[in-house]
């Protein structure tokens, strides 16, 4: 494994963005940092500023008000950066698919690297999605 691959896949700072979610996914994210699951073991930390982040974790069905904010935040992230669509709404707009207010799903606005489905996803599903993301990071930086 190359140095870049190791470092980028073992130190992940996550910025959590709620683009119009019902708050259920957001609670599940915090559950992953509690004693039972403890994602800090794998070097995963929640950060407050988008400038420190490696991963943009986007919950909620995107609506007309949040689309410009999502684009701006993606541009403000220092690269290399990755995006995770969280929950049924983040992945595919969920049950708001035909709403007048949700124009397009997240992966048509910015490139998405991993999807975590579920309404809300269980912590096990979140850890599974995390493994998918780490696989993606390793694949993108293979042998560097």
């Amino acid at each position, binding site marked *: 494994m190359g140095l870049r691959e190791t470092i980028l896949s073992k130190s992940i700072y996550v910025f959590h963005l709620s683009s119009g979610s019902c708050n259920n996914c957001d609670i599940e994210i915090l559950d992953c940092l509690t004693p039972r699951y403890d994602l*800090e073991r794998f070097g995963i930390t929640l950060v*407050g500023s988008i*400038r420190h982040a490696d991963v943009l974790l986007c919950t909620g069905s995107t609506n007309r008000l949040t689309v410009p904010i999502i684009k701006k935040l993606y541009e403000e992230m220092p690269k290399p950066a990755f995006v995770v669509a969280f929950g049924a709404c983040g992945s595919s707009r969920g049950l708001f698919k035909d709403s007048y207010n949700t124009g397009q799903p997240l992966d048509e606005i910015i490139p998405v690297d991993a999807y975590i489905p579920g309404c809300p996803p269980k912590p096990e599903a979140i850890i599974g999605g995390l493994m998918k993301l780490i696989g993606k990071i390793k694949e993108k930086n293979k042998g560097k």
Partner: protein
Amino acid sequence: MNLAEYLFMFLVFPGLLFSGAAGLVIGWVDRKVTAMLQWRVGPPWYQNFLDTAKLLLYKETLIPKGIARGYFLGMPLLALSAATLASTVLLSANGSTRAGFLGDVIVVVYLLMMPPIALMLGAFSSANTLATVGASREIKLMLSYELPFLLALSVPIVKSGYALKLGDIINYQAANGAVIGSPSGVLSFLAMIFCIQAKLGFVPFDMPEAETELMAGVYIEYSGKALGFFKLAKSIMIFALPVLIVTLYCGGVGSGGVVDIMKGALEYIAIVFIMILIKNTNPRVRIDHAMKFFWGPVAFLAALSCVLAVMGY
């Protein structure tokens, strides 16, 4: 000593490489003990090395539009070099009591003041509202803790016959017992622990970077290498400040033989542990509470210990 030796001391042995590595390990001890107190497992020992390497090597450094770029990018370097120099002076005085120079206590105090000032100027130059609020809190916090810090610091100096040299303070303690063994030493040690906590921005006094209300506050606009330099400077401070306490109150980290070094290491670990326990058992206080706390009880404690020391207790 020639220039090459000084450069080696600054960049490799007691300086950047050694203090940086030691600071990152102490930072991990902090994270691990915090995790264990919360019944979690916590990160592996090399986690802080990975985090810093990622920021320094691979992440992009973004500069906001329309700000003072010189200040914004220069301040992380100033913080890192001041912290490294403070650590170098402290450790070389511990290594050999003849290595210091007259007045190196004062130089160390000035150098330890530089990282917070650099952080504050960097935050102001980044022109972010939250960073500005964080920086103004940083100034107020600094004004609060510097008064008791300097009063408490004068106790070991007075005790060792007005010696302004770290080596002389260590020699005095080797001959007459540690400063912490006397009543004035205990009082000023207590005041010093609180000041160190605030100087490091550990939890009861972490208003400048309050992660839940200001979203990393002073660091908010920093990314990539600039953020990595600040993080490294903070790690070196976490390593150097307990060394300062051990030097001033417990007779130095020791350099003469295995037993001496073991004793120094145990005292060092005990002080780090006290700091982590205070951090984990207290909520963040408001800035005006911190100011009242430092200018009231802590300053009184430090002044009392100073008077006792002058009277010879």
